[in-house]
C-alpha cells in the first residue's frame, strides 16, 4: 500500500528541485516569503520555550521542525476560509493571521489567547484529540449550505487517527461532499507512542481510501510540496469536488511539551541529526543558495524585524491588564442564569473586587 502513496516532493533535502514543472508557478520571491514565515514561526517557538523556562508562560507545546507543514498549508487558504488547529499549530495560526500577542496570552493561561482578529476564522485550538475534525466538517458544510465557496482546513496528528472522531469526520466529509481539507501532520510520535504502535498501516493517507476520498502523502518538510498539494486540495474543495486527506510526513525535534522528557522514549541524537536532512528552513536556504538568491544581509534584516515583533508582543503580553474574573461568568451563557449570578455575588461578598 505504501507504494500507492509515494511521498510527493518539490525540493529535496539538498535543496535541489525534483519536480521542475511545479516550479513554473512559484517565484523566488515567494520562496523567500515562505522562508520568512518559517523563520518567524521558529523564532517565536524558541522564544516561547525560553519564556516557559523563565516561568513567564505555562506549559508550552513546541512545534520546531513542523514549520513547513503548518505554513505551506496555511498559506494555501484564502480570506474567509476556516482553520481548526490543535494545541501545536501556532505556526499555522500565526501565518493565517492570529495575533502574536494573543498567541502568547494563550500560553499565559489567558482566555483572550483563543480570540482571533475580527474576520479571521480560526477556531480555539482543539485540546481533546481529534474532536476538532468534526467542527471543521460542520463549518465547511455550513459554508456549502450558505452557497459560499469557502473551505475549512483542519490540523491533527498521527495519534489523532486512532480516535473515533477522526473516522466520523472523514465519513461525514465524504458522504456530504464537504469542502474540507483534512491535514495530518505525521511527526512519528503521539507523545511517547511511535506510529507503528499507534496503527498498523504504513501510511495515514491510505485511511482516506475507506471513505472513497482523495488522499495523498507529501513531504511535510518541503514547504513548496505542502503548499502545492494543499492549494490543489483547497481548489478541489472550492470547486465542490469534495474533501481531501493529506498526510504530511514531518518531524518535531523537541519533546511533546515542555513538561515532557523525550529522551525517555526516543533517541534525541537521532532527532538532532535529522536537522541536517529534514530541516524545512535549511532546505529552502540551500535552494536559495543554488539560485544565488540567498543573502546574509537579508537574513540579518528579517531576523532583526522578527526579533522586534516578538519583543513587542511579549511586552504587550506582560503589560496586559490582569484577568477579570467576570470573563468567566459573562461568557458561560448568553445571559447568566440565576445560579451563576448568585455565585458571582457570593464570590464578591467574600473575596471582594480586588
Amino acid at each position, binding site marked *: 500500500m505504501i507504494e500507492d502513496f509515494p511521498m510527493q516532493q518539490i525540493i529535496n533535502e539538498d535543496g535541489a528541485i525534483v519536480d521542475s514543472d511545479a516550479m513554473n508557478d512559484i517565484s523566488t520571491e515567494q520562496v523567500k516569503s515562505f522562508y520568512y514565515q518559517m523563520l518567524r514561526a521558529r523564532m517565536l517557538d524558541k522564544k516561547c520555550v525560553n519564556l516557559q523556562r523563565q516561568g513567564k508562560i505555562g506549559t508550552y507545546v513546541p512545534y520546531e521542525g513542523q514549520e513547513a507543514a503548518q505554513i505551506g498549508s496555511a498559506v494555501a487558504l484564502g480570506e474567509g476560509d476556516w482553520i481548526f488547529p490543535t494545541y501545536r499549530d501556532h505556526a499555522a495560526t500565526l501565518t493565517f493571521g492570529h495575533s502574536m500577542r494573543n498567541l502568547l496570552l494563550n500560553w499565559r493561561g489567558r482566555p483572550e489567547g483563543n480570540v482571533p482578529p475580527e474576520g479571521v476564522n480560526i477556531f480555539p485550538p482543539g485540546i*481533546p484529540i481529534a474532536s476538532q475534525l468534526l467542527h471543521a466538517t460542520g463549518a465547511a458544510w455550513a459554508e456549502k449550505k450558505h452557497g459560499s465557496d469557502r473551505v475549512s482546513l483542519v490540523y491533527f496528528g498521527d495519534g489523532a487517527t*486512532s*480516535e473515533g*472522531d477522526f473516522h466520523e469526520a472523514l465519513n461525514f466529509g465524504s458522504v456530504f461532499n464537504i469542502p474540507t481539507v483534512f491535514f495530518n501532520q505525521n511527526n512519528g510520535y*503521539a507523545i*511517547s*507512542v511511535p506510529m507503528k504502535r499507534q496503527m498498523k498501516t504504513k501510511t495515514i493517507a491510505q485511511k482516506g481510501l475507506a471513505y472513497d476520498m482523495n488522499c495523498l502523502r507529501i513531504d511535510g518538510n518541503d514547504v513548496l510540496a505542502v503548499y502545492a498539494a494543499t492549494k490543489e486540495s483547497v481548489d478541489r474543495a472550492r470547486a465542490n469536488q469534495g474533501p481531501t486527506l493529506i498526510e504530511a510526513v514531518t518531524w518535531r525535534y523537541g519533546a511533546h511539551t515542555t513538561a515532557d522528557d523525550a529522551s525517555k522514549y526516543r533517541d534525541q541524537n537521532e532527532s538532532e541529526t535529522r536537522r541536517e536532512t529534514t530541516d524545512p528552513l535549511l532546505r529552502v536556504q540551500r535552494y536559495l543558495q543554488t539560485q544565488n538568491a540567498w543573502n546574509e544581509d537579508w537574513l540579518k534584516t528579517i531576523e532583526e524585524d522578527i526579533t522586534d515583533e516578538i519583543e513587542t508582543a511579549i511586552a504587550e503580553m506582560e503589560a496586559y491588564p490582569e484577568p477579570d474574573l467576570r470573563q468567566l461568568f459573562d461568557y458561560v451563557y448568553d445571559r447568566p442564569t440565576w445560579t451563576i449570578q448568585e455565585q458571582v455575588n457570593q464570590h464578591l461578598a467574600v473575596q471582594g473586587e480586588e
Partner: protein
Amino acid sequence: MVSPAVNTKKMTMIEGVRNAMDEMLKENEDVIILGEDIGVNGGVFRATEGLHEKYGEERIIDTPISESGIIGNSIGLAANGFRPIAEIQFLGFIYPGFNQLMTHATRLRQRSLGRFTVPLVVRAPYGAGVRAPEIHSDSVESLFTHMPGIKVVVPSNAYDAKGLLITSIDDPDPVMFLEPLRCYRSNRTEVPDGKYTIDIGRASVLKQGDDISVFTWGAMVMDTMKAIEKLEEEQNISCEVIDLRTLYPLDKETITASVQKTGRAAIVHEAPATGGVSNDVISLINDTSFLYLRAPIQRVTGFDTPVPVYSLEQDYLPSAAKIKAAIVNAVNF
C-alpha cells in the same frame, strides 16, 4: 491499621498509586494496565514508571489514543478473566470513552444477570490548581456518581491511595479511581510495604471537632485543613474534618455520626455547585439528621462555569476565605 512489624516508607501519592499497582501486578497475573503513554514513558505523571520494564508489554500496554478503545477493550478483557486498570491521561479526556462506561461497563452485570461482570478500574488524574492547559483540570466526579453500577473513589494521600487502589483492583465491579493532580507530589505519608486494603465506602476522620463537620475530598482536603487551622487559631470554633474518600457509595455512618455530634455541616469541593456531590451529602444529612441541625448546611464549591484557564483558576477554586466564611456563617447562624 499499620502493625509495628510492617515496614513503612514515606511516599508521595503518585508513589502510593504505583506501589499499589506493583503489588497487584506481582500478585495476580490477570492484572494488566492499559493507557496512553503508560509503557516506555511510564505515564505522563509517572504513575506506571518502571512497571513496563518489570512486567513487559503484554501487561503494561501502550494503546493508541482512543479512550473509547481503552475502556471498551477493558470491558471485554474484564468480562473475560482479566483485571484491567485503564489509565485515562486526564479526566477531562474521558468523554470519548463515556459511552462505553455508561452503556456497558456499569450495567453489564445487571444486563446479563451476573453472567458477565466488569472488574475494571479506571484511573484518571483530575482537578485544578496545577496551571494545566484547558480541559486538563475538569472536576467532574458527579458524572460518575450519577452512573449506577460504578463506584467512585478519590484518595488524597499516599496511604489512602495505595489501600484504596488495591481494594479497587480486587473489587468485582467497575471503580472510577480519581486522582487529584494537586495531591500527587504535594504531601508524603507513611505507607506500609506489601498488600493492605481500605474499604471502599469508608470516610476518614482527619480531625475531631465539636462545632461543625466539614466534609471534603481530593485536593480540597489540603486547602480545607489549612483554612481550618487558621480559623481555629483566630476564633473559638472547633471543626471536625472528614475526607470522604469514596463519593459513591457515601459513608452514611460516619457522616451521620459526625453531624449528629456537631449539629452543623459544611461541604467543600472544587467541582461546580449545581449537580455536585455536595447535594448528595446534604440529602443524606437531611434524611438522617434533620432535627440535629442548628444551621443550614453550607456549600463551598467551584462555580457553574467551565474550569477556567490558569490565569483565573485560583479564583475558581474555593479559597481559604470562602471556607472560613462558610464555617463562620454556620456557627453564627
